[in-house]
């Protein structure tokens, strides 16, 4: 009866511990290694330095300025991409001819999306917010469109016929059948797109901005402030994990997994 002794609470703590534990070990190894090797700050910072850097950034308000700038751009980019890509992709997917025509174009664009547009974006929009938001939108748009289109093409024909035979109107068809049917593929596209968008954001902020995490990172490099560099990297990593846990994972759990449809081509 050993299994019964496991309390419901303990079951939740276990996985969390298994997530934080290895990372804690990693930090400990870092602290010991830097101390043992006597690595100077201009090469690699000690754990305490990084914590202090985060503290300084927080107290001076820089942290929230940069964080706010990055999150606002990312958020706007995501919303713009969703609003433009999903209707477009689903519309393309509902026509065999259109999807055959656009498939190679979209694959080409996905390969090029994001960072490669930075030079043009800065030319069109100048340095600053608009260029960065354009890059995030651009990085996500094609992957989302392509996967939404594929998703609609993958909906079983019987399902479409069943819906039509029940007298579903065109708008209802979109909200009740096409969008949910394409969702497994859309979630895949969202994952790919967010990956490109996040990288695009950091790169664009390094190259074309005077605020944001990427900018903070690159400024610190100019003054060899490795503590600030590592601090910014940690923040970037944590933000992505949070995005994954709080945005993508619940979306997958509530929709695709809940309906027993597995994701496509993860």
């Amino acid at each position, binding site marked *: 009866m050993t299994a019964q002794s496991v309390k419901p609470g303990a079951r939740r703590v276990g996985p969390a511990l298994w997530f934080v534990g290895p990372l804690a070990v990693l930090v400990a190894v870092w602290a010991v290694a830097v101390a043992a090797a006597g690595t100077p700050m201009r090469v690699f910072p000690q754990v305490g330095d990084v914590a202090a850097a985060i503290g300084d950034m927080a107290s001076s308000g820089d942290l929230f300025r940069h964080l706010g700038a990055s999150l606002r751009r990312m958020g706007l980019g995501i919303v713009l991409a969703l609003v433009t890509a999903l209707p477009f992709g689903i519309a393309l997917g509902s026509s065999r001819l259109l999807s055959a025509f656009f498939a*190679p174009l979209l694959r080409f664009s996905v390969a090029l999306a994001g960072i*490669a547009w930075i*030079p043009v974006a800065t030319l069109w929009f100048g340095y600053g917010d608009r260029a960065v938001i354009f890059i995030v939108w651009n990085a996500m748009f094609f992957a989302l469109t392509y996967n939404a289109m594929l998703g609609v093409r993958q909906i079983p024909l019987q399902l479409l016929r069943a819906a039509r035979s029940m007298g579903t109107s065109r708008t209802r068809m979109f909200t009740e059948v096409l969008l949910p049917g394409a969702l497994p593929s859309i979630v895949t596209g969202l994952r790919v797109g967010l990956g490109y968008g996040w990288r695009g954001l950091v790169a664009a902020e390094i190259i074309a901005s005077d605020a944001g995490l990427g900018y903070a990172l690159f400024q610190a490099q100019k003054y060899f402030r490795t503590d600030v560099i590592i601090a910014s990297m940690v923040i970037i990593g944590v933000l992505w994990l949070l995005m994954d846990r709080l945005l993508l994972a619940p979306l997958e759990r509530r929709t695709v997994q809940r309906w027993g449809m597995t994701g496509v081509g993860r």
Partner: protein
Amino acid sequence: MTTVSAKPVRTTARPPRPAPLWRRLVRTGTFRTLGPFVPVIALWWLVAALEVFPESFFVGPPEVVDKLGELLEKGILPGYLSDSLTRLGYGVGFGLLIGLPLGYAVAMLPRLRRFCWPILLFFQAIADIAWLPIVIVWFGFSLTSVTFVLVYTIVFPLMLSVVAGVEQVPRELIRAARSLGAGRWRVFLEVIVPGALPSVAGGIRTGLGYGWRALVAAEIIVGTSGVGFMMFDARRVGDISQVFLGMAVLGALWYALDALILAPFERATVERWGMVRRLEADG
């Protein structure tokens, strides 16, 4: 490239009557892939010719082709192109050499996997470009810095995909091999390595997609040579046709990479074995 597990596909017998020439032409892969670019380029041309946007913001195909000729003649483009490809080659080569063995090691040892999984996720979460500043601190504005970031971008998606791939190998295949007399090592070589390949192929694609972008970003930021540098340098002096040319080159290069290396590899392995099916949107 999106793929799904394939169900057995039976080829249906075609009627012997040959289709009209234009129909057969439309059915060829080349036409299907490249055909759609013709009207798009025509549209691009038209928009540029009508001067919908100012000429300093938007140029048409002739200007880009002129620029291509000019840079080819001066030898600038071939030089930059080979710089970029060399970096990509080093990055991918070392990325594979490091990522594949490490990935399989982590996947095969449950304790190690449990320990490494969050660390892998965290390192994957630190967007690769974000490593560039610290790497510049270590190695300066050099080829080493660019290669380091590239290797990084490839290793982590690759390792994650190897672990996922090993998990996806059907248990019955391993059982079948064991009951035919295969030891653990043979099971690994003959069942787990090929069984994980669909996912690994996907990981290589993802890694290359990220690596490709990281290369362009690193070349812009490190700024010594390469196609990324060429584009940003042109942007600084406002040479829009050279920026457009850079994008066209990057796109064409990706296509060549896909058509000459990735796609043939997948056709010869996972597609040949019926484990994944190329998913065309016209299906």
